[in-house]
């Protein structure tokens, strides 16, 4: 019995986490639900970025762009033409919200595909710099394509609904165990369900043939090509998949904000997502989720409790506020993690698991398993004679 439990430790931990998350709305208040919702959205986005940067080794700073495509795509497809004031009339397709969600994700994928002629030709660091361009083009479009995006003040994202069940405070009113299920509670479950699906899908991709191909590309493009991996196609594919994840995350962000604004989708957002996957551990799906939860929650929680945290400055005061403080934390975390523990949170978890496991019996180490990043030291330095 215990042996089975130990062997399936990952599964058990996963199920426990999901169950805890599923009952939480019965106990926690609106603030934590909102934090959770942002964390779910960020986790989905981070899984996507991690597939590209962590598993395939392609640095991308364009994630904010694809998040914006998802958020505004959803708002456009599900919205209707309205006058939002300031002489701006936003158009909308007026489609059912679920269809709008699917189309927004596909649109983000298509945007990734449009960029793939560049993405598949450029190697690692050139791609990172080139992807900066998308963030700036994104800002330009969001501010100027007013009939779609609403310009500086954004546009409303219509509430989600599925088969007549609407994710709002009413319609139909719902009370579970004496807890009223309003918009936040309902969206919480939507976010959780989408995150679980996104997580399982990414894990399976990485463990299947395409996933192995991506990781071979990360380790050496030449070696991957020699082994018969179509490097260009797989790189483009990784880019498309990662943008679709970002698109889904963007839809959730739009639902959580209820009104996406251009200011949110700037370069800082891309860098925040990079911080999530580095802190969580490059290449690990679970790590991306953990990193996303940490990076998303930190500034929100610090702001919420800043009254009782004496080392933080109050709004309007000189000094270090919650936003700056969390910037220091994850700026420093990026540096420390990459210098000291390149596996991030996932690597630390793996080490803990490894030390309990070794007492039992030596497990064969799967060398291309994403969490076994220690093998990296054995690999050729890139830029050596091979490349």
């Amino acid at each position, binding site marked *: 019995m215990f042996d089975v439990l130990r062997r399936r430790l990952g599964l058990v931990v996963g199920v426990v986490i999901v169950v805890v998350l599923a009952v939480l709305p019965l106990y926690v208040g609106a603030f934590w639900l909102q934090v959770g919702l942002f964390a779910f959205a960020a986790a989905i986005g981070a899984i996507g970025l991690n597939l590209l940067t962590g598993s395939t*080794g392609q*640095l991308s700073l364009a994630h904010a762009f694809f998040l914006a495509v998802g958020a505004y795509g959803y708002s456009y497809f599900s919205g209707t033409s309205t006058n939002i004031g300031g002489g701006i009339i936003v158009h909308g397709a007026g489609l059912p919200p679920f269809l709008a969600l699917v189309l927004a994700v596909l649109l983000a994928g298509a945007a990734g595909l449009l960029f793939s*002629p*560049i993405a598949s*030709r*450029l*190697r*690692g*660091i*050139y791609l*990172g*710099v*080139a992807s*900066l*361009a998308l963030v*700036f*083009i994104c*800002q*330009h*479009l969001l*501010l*100027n*394509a007013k009939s779609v995006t609403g310009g500086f003040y954004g546009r409303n994202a219509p509430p989600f609904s599925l088969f007549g069940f609407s994710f709002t405070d009413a319609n139909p009113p719902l009370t579970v165990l004496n807890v009223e299920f309003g918009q936040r509670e309902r969206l919480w479950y939507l976010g959780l369900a989408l995150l679980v699906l996104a997580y399982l899908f990414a894990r399976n991709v990485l463990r299947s043939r395409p996933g192995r191909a991506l990781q071979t590309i990360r380790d050496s*493009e*030449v070696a991957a*090509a*020699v082994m018969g991996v179509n490097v260009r196609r797989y790189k483009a594919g990784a880019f498309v998949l990662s943008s679709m994840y970002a698109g889904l995350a963007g839809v959730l962000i739009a639902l959580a904000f209820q009104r996406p604004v251009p200011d949110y989708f700037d*370069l800082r957002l891309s*860098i925040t997502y*990079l*911080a999530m996957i*580095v802190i969580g551990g490059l290449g690990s799906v679970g790590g991306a989720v953990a990193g996303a939860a940490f990076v998303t929650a930190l500034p929100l929680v610090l702001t919420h409790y800043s009254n009782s945290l004496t080392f933080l400055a109050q709004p309007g005061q*000189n000094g*270090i506020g919650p936003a*700056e403080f969390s*910037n*220091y934390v*994850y*700026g*420093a*975390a*990026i*540096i420390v993690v*990459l*210098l000291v523990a*390149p596996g991030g949170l996932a690597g630390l978890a793996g080490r803990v698991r490894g030390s309990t496991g070794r007492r039992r019996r030596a497990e064969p180490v799967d060398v291309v398993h994403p969490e076994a990043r220690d093998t*990296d*030291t054995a690999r050729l*330095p*890139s*830029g050596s*004679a*091979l*490349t």
Partner: protein
Amino acid sequence: MTYFGELVINGISLGCIYTLIALGFVVIFKATEVVNFAQGSMLLLGAYFVARTHSRVGFVPAVLIGIAIAAVGALVIQQVLSRAKFADPITLSIITIGVDILLSTELTRRIGQQVLSFDDPWGNRTADLGPFTVPQARIAAMVVAAVLIGAFFAAYKYSSWGVATRATAEDFEAAALMGIRRNRVSMGAWLIAGALATVAGVFLGTSPSPGLNNTSNLTALNAFPAAVVGGLDSTGGAVAGGLLIGVVQSLTAGYNNDLSFLGSPLGDVSAYVVMLAVLLWRPSGLFGTREVARV
């Protein structure tokens, strides 16, 4: 026509500033294969100290202090990076993003909503170049940048540091066997990048710009397209890319009213559109080394 000419002159001057920053990217990239995402905050670091000290010691000594501080800061970053012995260049570049978050958060917090001026000797005065009226600070930027760029190329070609850097960039193992210390080479590269960035930062804050503010480090990001357009591993490309981006930005911003169907502001986005177009055509930039894979 006069307007066009003035825009081009302003663009060339802006391009000279971008070239100074882009040369920093290139020299670090050549020496260490790292793309330094912290270049913008290094620029802000140096320029911030120039702005803070000039009222006490005067403009030129303040610039020297700023250069020294940015160079030391760059050296600290280089030392941090050298701790990660087995990390690949992409990991190291991500570490510089972490450094950038720390530095830029602290500096923008200190600057806040202020606009810091330098009290530079040129002020808001303009000069007449034939039919064109150009801010004196822009002319000074061109002259200073030309001198610095010339000095850089001379040092790169003839000094022992330049030879060592080029040898390392060519083949770091062979260079190491010839007794060239890679650490020294990369220290030199970072020092120079920090110093050049400070000079660029000062000129980014002089007329026609109102001064140094908390987004000056983002302006420095425009040097990224400059470096990439020219080719990240080409010093000559940095000059060509810098000038191209500077002129394109100046022209698109200047004719924004005639191009209003493209939206505004066009200045920032045009640099990145040019970069994407060049990359589609030549993935390693105009003058960058094409990567050849041998098995």
